[in-house]
């Protein structure tokens, strides 16, 4: 085990995989000399050279498309998007091309492509640099979606993403980059997709949280523990595939479900999880599932306003209490 930041866990994983497989290359905006604006590719240019570590023009739709073409032609590209907000510029290539190529061509193509980058609040970046966009990619079939919440998960999930023969959307969170944690030294350490992580066991309520909100959910659970409410905290880690069985198993035990994420509540991942649990485990629920997510407005610049839009720890506490009727 080594103690690393989330950003360095990502960087090291990319470097380790590139050393093993010469088909892997990485491209994106400012990733070469600059090492990425969040340092996730620092030093890669020096080690692997400008052919395999490429700065791109600011042309998301075409460099994402070039990643798709290179993947179809046998390489394993990693494409960095500087801010996931910029993914909208490349939506045609991702949703009409990458997601559909394998199916539309009768299973005769494979697209081993990783699109990675950071999203979320944390730097006062306002409406076009702070969004959490994962739900969009859960809706369209053909893309896997990973959401690492710790340095170890970042390394383990990214390794699985790079080795996967499908296109993978890999959503990092900018507020997590500087967080530190133990990461296994094993260069084959990989976390399989579709395996939720039960971070804390509990008996009274199940909190499902992703990315930055895993930590907030744990803090809420700590507060609730003192008030005699025992929460189980689950991080699904990937939402495509989604380990609904682990979530349902937990709800069968606790009878209560709270889902919290930074992304907008409306039409979000929480809505999907709540629906699947309601459809499949209605009889186990002692209260209606509660969803917490950003209010349905654009993320504002001002810190006070930003905090008013996204769920706070006390909101999680309140939601849990609501389900336990306390």
């Amino acid at each position: 085990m080594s103690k690393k930041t989330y950003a360095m866990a990502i960087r090291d994983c990319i470097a380790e995989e590139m050393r093993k497989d010469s088909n892997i290359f990485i491209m994106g905006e400012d990733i070469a000399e600059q090492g990425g604006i969040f340092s996730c590719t620092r030093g890669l240019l020096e080690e692997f050279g400008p052919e395999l570590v490429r700065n791109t023009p600011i042309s998301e739709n075409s460099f994402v498309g070039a990643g798709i073409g290179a993947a179809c032609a046998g390489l394993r590209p990693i494409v960095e998007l500087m801010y996931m907000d910029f993914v909208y510029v490349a939506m045609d290539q991702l949703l009409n091309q990458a997601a559909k190529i394998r199916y539309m061509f009768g299973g005769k193509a494979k697209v081993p492509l990783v699109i990675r980058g950071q999203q979320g609040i944390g730097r006062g970046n306002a409406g076009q640099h702070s969004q959490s966009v994962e739900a969009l990619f859960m809706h369209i079939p053909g893309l896997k979606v990973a959401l690492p919440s710790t340095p170890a998960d970042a390394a383990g999930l990214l390794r699985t993403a790079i080795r996967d023969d499908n296109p993978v959307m890999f959503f990092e969170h900018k507020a997590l980059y500087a967080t530190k944690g133990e990461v296994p030294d094993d260069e084959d350490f990989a976390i399989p997709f579709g395996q939720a992580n039960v971070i804390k066991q509990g008996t009274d309520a199940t909190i499902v949280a992703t990315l930055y909100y895993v930590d907030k959910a744990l803090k809420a659970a700590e507060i609730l523990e003192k008030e005699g409410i025992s929460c189980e905290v689950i991080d699904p880690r990937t939402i495509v595939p989604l380990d609904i069985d682990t979530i349902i198993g937990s709800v069968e035990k606790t009878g209560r479900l709270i889902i919290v994420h930074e992304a907008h509540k409306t039409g979000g991942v929480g809505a999907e999880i709540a629906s699947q649990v309601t459809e499949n485990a209605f009889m186990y629920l002692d209260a209606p599932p509660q969803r917490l997510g950003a209010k349905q407005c654009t993320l504002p610049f001002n810190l006070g306003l930003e905090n008013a839009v996204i769920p706070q720890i006390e909101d999680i506490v309140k939601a849990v209490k609501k389900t336990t009727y306390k």
Partner: protein
Amino acid sequence: MIKKERLIWIYTKMNEIRKFEEKAWKLFEENKLRGSVHLYIGEEAIAATVCSLLTDADYITSTHRGHGHGIAKSGDIKSAMAELMGKETGFCKGRGGSMHIADLEKGNLGANAIVGGGIPIAVGGALAAQLKGTDQVSVSFFGDGASNQGTFHESLNLASVWKLPAIFICENNQFAISVPVAQSTSVKDISVRSKGYDMPGYTVDGNDVLAINEAMEKAIKRAKKGGGPTLIECKTYRWKGHWTGDPEIYRSREEVAEWIEKCPIKRLRKHMIDEKIASAKELDAIEAKAQADVDEATQFALNSPEPDTAKVMDDVFFEELGGAV
């Protein structure tokens, strides 16, 4: 100068495409095809000539009007016709249909029903060739309409900056559905847009096999030398409507008739006979064989099984995710 063997190949492909498209039109009218088909009739010289200079290792991306590119690149008429009918034996096992013919084993990275959608993907093929150090080239076919998409401009820039072995073939058939080029496009000759991206650009008669060949040979030479990409605009005309249901209010019958006179197949035939490259009898035999092959492919497709509906969820991902989605 094209050697006889290759000219015969081109003539054969052009006839196969023509017969294939005529059959597709007929089948559509007989209600044996669903969806819509976008016919390549009148534009055959481009796909056939360009692909005559490619090997199976070279890549192409194609368009919604992609039957011609698919036939010229891979040659499998049966799988193409079966795909038009949505059959299990089709290129895409009935998942794609007319607008999504792909054959990755033969370098066809796929037709694309998003205008301009395939251009960056072809750039990716060229990037793979450069990174692997092969002498492959990657060709993107697209129409005049696509030259107004951002992907066209971004892709030309990207390929030029990275000196990729990419060749951009703009099939200017005069209309983006119903809108004439002059109404939608800032330049008369789309090839001039190459100047903005520091690459050679050629405008050629897209119904003239020899002219297309000349430009394409230059482009391939440049690409293989590491010189980077080329843009070739082939001016041509589609004889049929944009799709099978097009009311064609945007052009006169006289205009269509004029272009039918400029038939690329007739033109190549005349050249080969005049230059004593092939006899009329030889060329008649090629045409007859193309018709017979298309008829056989049609029968194959009609007799092929429907896809198994129980397998409708297959191939969303590389492996089965089961219910875990």
